[in-house]
């Protein structure tokens, strides 16, 4: 009973809540980091150094009037934010935050579940997330959101191909689709896959920037071009859901990047006995630190780079990233067959 | 009350028939295409149910092929719809009576 029901439920609750809190504090982190990059202070008023800002934002957004345009497709309009939020959350089911640890006299795995198609599960669930954006644009029955959602869907589908191809290179290295096995494979290979698959890693980062609609690929919500992108007509909590989904997706891709390319929960040099003293730090801390580095990278890029144009984005995706990813895959395969 | 392949077959048959009705009754070619997808799914359910029953993975292999064919069919079919729509400004199957224009 405890093992089959209570512990999984507890894990789900903890992960879900941690994610939602993490997501809301991502907004604060982003505002703070960008502010520092731009020689500003960022939010300072709510709480010391503005640490309570996400709570104030949430209260504000909940209290705001929730407007549905009169010509909108009401059901779809309501469903769209939910559709974009749900995939972002259910992906966490397979992300390993740590190995199986001994907790209160019981073996507890620091992941919700470990399915043998874990990586494919993530890809497929992420591919459903695109519906939220398309439907938001369609249901608003307004031109700017429609343009934005067409852009978004084209962008997501294009970059998904490149990202998935890089994942295949990693699968070739690990020989498994299970997220836990991929981390263990990195332990056994004595090296993080990020160092043996640098090309795949770079493409993955670029592709995931595009898939999460982050600068410099934030065309679907390019404020300067399409006013607000696909969520122009949204307000209040529904609007907030789109934002939460975007940040949740950022955390997802950071976690996936950490797991696939930077050894997941493993400490640096996991096989070097001399660094054994690092084991006092719990494994999940390493996971969080590495994910945080990626999140910071995302914010940093946003503060630095201008935005791509739609056609340039497509050209980059189809004419650069996908061929390079395929080439990388072929080379990985050949090397794997020849040397191993 | 065990669930036998017969149950899956009946489910698959029902889905198949819904698809057939969609193809025959609706005039919107996009809906017709979607009905064809339903039919293909009905076939896949059968294949996988038998694959499970016989502990033979070949059924799944064929389901993969079916999905590949469905993808190809959707791509070309929707391309035709777009080209047709551009010329006739309609997606009514009854108006699709020319082999070329």
């Amino acid at each position, binding site marked *: 009973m405890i093992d089959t029901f209570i512990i999984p439920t507890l894990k789900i609750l903890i992960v879900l809540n941690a994610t939602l809190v993490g997501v809301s504090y991502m907004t604060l982190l982003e505002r703070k980091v960008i502010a520092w990059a731009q020689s500003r202070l960022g939010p300072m008023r709510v709480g010391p150094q503005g640490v309570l800002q996400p709570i104030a934002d949430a209260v504000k957004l909940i209290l705001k009037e929730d407007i549905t345009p009169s010509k909108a497709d009401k059901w779809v309009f309501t469903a769209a934010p939910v559709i974009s939020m749900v995939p972002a959350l259910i992906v966490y089911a397979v992300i390993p935050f740590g190995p199986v640890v001994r907790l209160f006299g019981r073996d507890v795995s620091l992941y919700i579940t470990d399915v*043998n*198609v874990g990586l494919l*599960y993530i890809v497929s669930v992420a*591919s*459903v997330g695109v519906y939220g954006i*398309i*439907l938001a644009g*369609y249901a608003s029955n307004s031109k700017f959101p429609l343009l934005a*959602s*067409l852009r978004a*869907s084209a962008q997501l*589908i294009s970059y*998904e191909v490149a990202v998935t191809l890089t994942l295949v290179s990693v699968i070739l290295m690990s020989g498994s*689709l299970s997220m836990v096995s991929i981390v263990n494979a990195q332990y056994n290979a004595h090296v993080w896959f990020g160092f043996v698959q640098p090309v795949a890693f770079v493409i993955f980062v670029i592709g995931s920037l595009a898939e999460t609609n982050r600068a410099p690929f934030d065309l679907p919500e390019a404020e300067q071009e399409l006013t607000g992108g696909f969520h122009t007509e949204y307000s209040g909590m529904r609007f907030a859901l789109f934002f939460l989904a975007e940040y949740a997706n950022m955390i997802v891709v950071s976690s996936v990047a950490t797991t696939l390319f930077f050894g997941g929960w493993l400490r640096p040099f996991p096989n070097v006995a001399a660094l054994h003293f690092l084991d006092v730090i719990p494994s999940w801390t390493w996971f969080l630190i590495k994910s945080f580095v990626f999140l910071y990278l995302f914010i940093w890029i946003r503060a630095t780079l201008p935005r791509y144009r739609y056609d340039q984005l497509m050209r980059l995706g189809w004419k650069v990233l996908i061929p390079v990813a395929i080439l990388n895959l072929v080379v990985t395969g050949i090397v794997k067959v020849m040397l191993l | *009350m*065990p*669930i036998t392949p*017969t*149950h*899956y*077959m009946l*489910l698959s*048959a029902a*889905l198949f028939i*819904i698809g057939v*009705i969609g*193809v*025959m009754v*609706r*005039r*919107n*070619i*996009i809906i017709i295409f*979607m009905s064809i*997808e*339903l039919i293909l*799914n009905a076939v896949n359910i059968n294949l*996988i149910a038998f*694959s*499970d029953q*016989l502990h*033979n*993975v*070949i059924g799944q*292999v064929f*389901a993969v092929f079916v*999905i*590949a*064919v*469905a*993808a*190809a069919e959707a*791509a*070309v079919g929707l*391309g035709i719809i*777009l080209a047709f*729509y*551009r010329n006739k400004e*309609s997606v009514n199957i009854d*108006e699709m009576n020319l082999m070329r224009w």
Partner: protein
Amino acid sequence: MAHAIAFYTLAAFILGFAILVVTTKDTVHSVLFLVLDFLFVAALYVMLNAPFLAVIQVLVYAGGIVVLYLFVVMLVNLKRPPEAHSDPHRMTKFGFGLAGAVLIELGAIVVSGYMKAPAVTSPAQNLPVSGNTEQVGWLLYTNYLIPFEIASMLLLVAMIGAIVLAKREL
């Protein structure tokens, strides 16, 4: 028992959404019901020990093909619903008749299947079902290599065909 409940629930959802797909007036809603239908079919695959197929179903069908449908529906936004032309129910009788014929045929197969003794009880290749991703992959690249290559050629041709058809000026 749990198995039965799961099956009947999923079956109800699959058939219910399938009916909605073919009956809904608004094409976009129809597409959405199709997605939901596919997701429940994927759940059914999980029940049938085919997690790989389930994931492929979601990835290719829900995440790929149906997005394409939605795209086209949005592009081909209709000023007049196609059913408004001529007699909308012109083919209805024929359609239901044909569907009924198929139903009878399938029913006959099922019934005749019950009449005979269960022929196949001992599987020919008793492969372990767990980890079937590997098996599917193995079969695809060995026994079914040529069909697999043909399928990939088919996809390539379809891709080129779609581009040629949909692009206005090449």
